């Protein structure tokens, strides 16, 4: 009997664990180690953050689902890996520390035959002074990165609406809280949902809306932009976004690295090297992501973290990490199997794998500060990679070490994303985007690196309905309800 340990119970980890358990059956064991007791459909946190959904609607308890799937569930956080075992044995293991199940604080060594690292990111609030610290979100801003954060954001937002109803003007600052953030799409969704709710509450005229982000052009979304269709015409996402911001009265500031957050004020540096400040009454700033800080040790107990993980804490996989400057980037730099090059029984999926380089054009200010979006690895690609990795691991177990590994390169993968711009059955809007491939392939598609026939977007009420349907569909799938395997990632 082989044991597969999956670190993380997010989109990638949950997908990998549930498919592995389904394919391996009772002959082998699948263990999930995640510090959370609940699964969270993160895309809907946007609606929690404006009070349009409750925290309970976007989460569910993992324990009964894993029990149903025959998965061993350990509510714990992983601390370190020993891919060669230790002095007392050759069996590789991961050291975990419980965060629940009545064993909080207890440590355990969980041996494995195969390990899938799908821990997701550490929300690195500490990277920007005042945005937060090692313990998480700070006191001056809100976040929608977790259901709890979004719930807190909704309460703070409700307070602002109360103040506005009493005639007090409020300034909303939303975007990215560091020069090296990803997830601009989430911030985009949030600012337009806030704007939509303010209109519904009849207080929009008392609100100043300000967007701040590390994108070098509006509509970059961390993927270098795409085409949008609006009013029967195709246009670049920059023209679409500029038009939307203008139409909704949202001011924008881009190419910005937020370097300090204080009560009611952020300081930033722009791509031209100039410094500035922006005041706010309510701010939601996405933090940069980092690896969760797993350590790795060899059999002798020597620290081999740098061998297994990239400097940013994400796990090294079969990517080309020495691609060099922007002009040398190729689609083939991106990983295909997500297998660690040193330890073949280690895989990474979702945000946990170290990308070879960004997707958007890298830019730095004259002061040397890097200001550009880091590559997104969330949502659809995350699920697809999780499933491919689970497939590889199952084949390795069933067919032996020579089994063919399954591939899911982001440079050969399309992705769809639905970005809400306001919730409402009849007045909601969302931008439905498709991009192919996610990572530009400049050799196959000279110029932009994308197949423009499949890189497209459209905004409207139908997009909102799709987003709403997807919410229920993916919650249904994640709960492993009948037919869950038929629902695509």
């Amino acid at each position, binding site marked *: 009997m082989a044991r597969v340990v999956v670190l993380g119970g997010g989109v990638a980890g949950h997908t990998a664990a549930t498919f592995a358990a389904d394919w391996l059956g009772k002959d082998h064991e699948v263990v999930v180690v995640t510090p959370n007791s609940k699964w969270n459909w993160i895309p809907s946190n946007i609606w929690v953050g404006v009070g349009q959904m409750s925290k309970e609607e976007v989460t569910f308890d993992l324990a009964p689902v894993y029990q149903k799937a025959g998965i061993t569930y350990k509510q714990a956080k992983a601390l370190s890996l020993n891919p060669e075992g230790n002095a007392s044995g050759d069996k590789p293991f991961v050291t975990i520390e419980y965060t629940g199940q009545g064993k909080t604080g207890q440590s355990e060594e969980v041996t494995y035959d195969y390990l899938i690292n799908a821990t997701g990111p550490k929300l690195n609030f500490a990277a920007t002074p005042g945005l937060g610290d090692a313990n998480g979100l700070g006191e001056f801003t809100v976040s929608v990165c977790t259901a709890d954060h979004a719930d807190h954001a909704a309460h703070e937002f409700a307070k602002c609406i109360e103040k506005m109803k009493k005639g007090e003007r409020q300034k909303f600052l939303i975007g990215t809280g560091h020069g090296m953030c990803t997830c601009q799409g989430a911030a985009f969704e949030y600012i337009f949902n806030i704007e939509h709710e303010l209109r519904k509450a009849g207080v929009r005229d008392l609100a100043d809306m300000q967007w701040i982000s590390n994108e*070098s*052009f509006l509509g970059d979304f961390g993927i*270098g*932009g795409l*085409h949008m*269709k609006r*009013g*029967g*015409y*195709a*246009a*670049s996402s*920059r*023209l679409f976004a500029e038009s939307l911001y*203008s139409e909704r009265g949202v*001011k*924008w*500031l*881009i*190419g*910005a690295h937020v370097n300090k957050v204080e009560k009611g004020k952020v300081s930033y540096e*722009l*791509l*031209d*090297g*100039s410094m500035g400040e922006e005041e706010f009454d309510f701010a939601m700033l996405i933090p940069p992501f980092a690896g969760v800080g797993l350590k790795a040790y060899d059999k002798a107990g020597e620290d081999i973290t740098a061998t297994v993980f990239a400097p940013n804490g994400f796990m090294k996989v079969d990517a080309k990490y020495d691609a060099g400057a*922007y*002009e040398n*980037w190729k689609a083939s730099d991106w990983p295909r199997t997500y297998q660690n090059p040193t330890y073949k029984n280690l895989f990474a999926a979702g945000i946990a794998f170290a990308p070879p380089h960004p997707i958007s*054009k890298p*830019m*730095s*200010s*004259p002061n040397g500060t890097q200001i550009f979006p880091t590559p997104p690895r969330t949502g659809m690609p995350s699920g697809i990679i999780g499933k491919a990795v689970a497939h590889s691991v199952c084949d390795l177990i069933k067919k032996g070490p020579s089994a063919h590994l399954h591939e899911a390169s982001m440079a050969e993968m399309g992705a*769809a994303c639905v970005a809400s711009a306001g919730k409402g059955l009849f007045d909601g809007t969302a931008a*439905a*985007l*498709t991009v192919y491939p996610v990572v530009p392939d*400049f050799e196959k598609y000279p*110029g*932009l*690196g994308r197949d*423009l*026939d*499949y890189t*497209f*977007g*459209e905004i409207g009420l*139908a997009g909102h309905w*799709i987003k709403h349907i997807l919410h229920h569909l993916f919650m249904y799938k994640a709960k492993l309800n009948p037919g869950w395997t038929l629902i695509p990632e």
Partner: protein
Amino acid sequence: MIKELITYPDERIKYISADVRKFDDELFELLENMHDTMEHQALDAISAIQIAIPFSAIIIKEGEKILELINARIIVNEGVNEAEEKSAYFPSGFSATIKRYSTIKVVYENRHGELQHLNVNGEFSRRIQQQVDFLFGGTLLDKMAKENRTEAEKKLSNEGFIAGESCPVVFVRDYFKRGAKYLLVLVTLTFILPFFVSPEMRALVYMLDKYALFGVILLMIIYFIYGQYEGKKYKQCTSCQIGNIIGTVLILSFQLLIVSLGVFLWVTP
């Protein structure tokens, strides 16, 4: 070398210009060609896409000075104003009132790949914004309100500048969908007839309803097949067409099922 300027209604202007990745002889040659073309055409600015090269490069005159803006981005804006604009892409008699930012901050690279920036306002800011729009596939038409744009396109068309076939306003498949829906509504209306008509007439209505339901199925099949054809033909026009077609057929099937149940359980003599 002087190159030909692309002009309305040449659709290549809509192509989004790729970032310049290599600052080499090929780029220098492109800049020389842009410069020669700009001088030959007596323009005060030109972007690479105007000579049909989709790379993010602009040459613009600022008084006597000539600036080369590679990979230009507008990162900060202040204020908005409206003014009448012309563009070398459109016929000389064409102009439009366009809203633009009054003051902008632009970052760009020079021909050696070094990051530069400009803080500009007034007419120069307006010209830079027009050129940056070209880089992202935008023309004056994209900055106009939909009604004004339609009117402007009509005016251009009347002057003999006819844009090529792009995305149809109405897809043919939608006529089949509409036909199926009308038939379903018609059949639904017959549900009240059993209250008023004789048993013979009721039998006739029942028979006609059955033909109508068969017609709905036929229209749905045509909608589905023709929809697939149109979806592939106009795949650049909208996203998820095939998904929408399948969704529409599912919704219609559900409606058909409900109406059919009504016919077979209620209208039946």
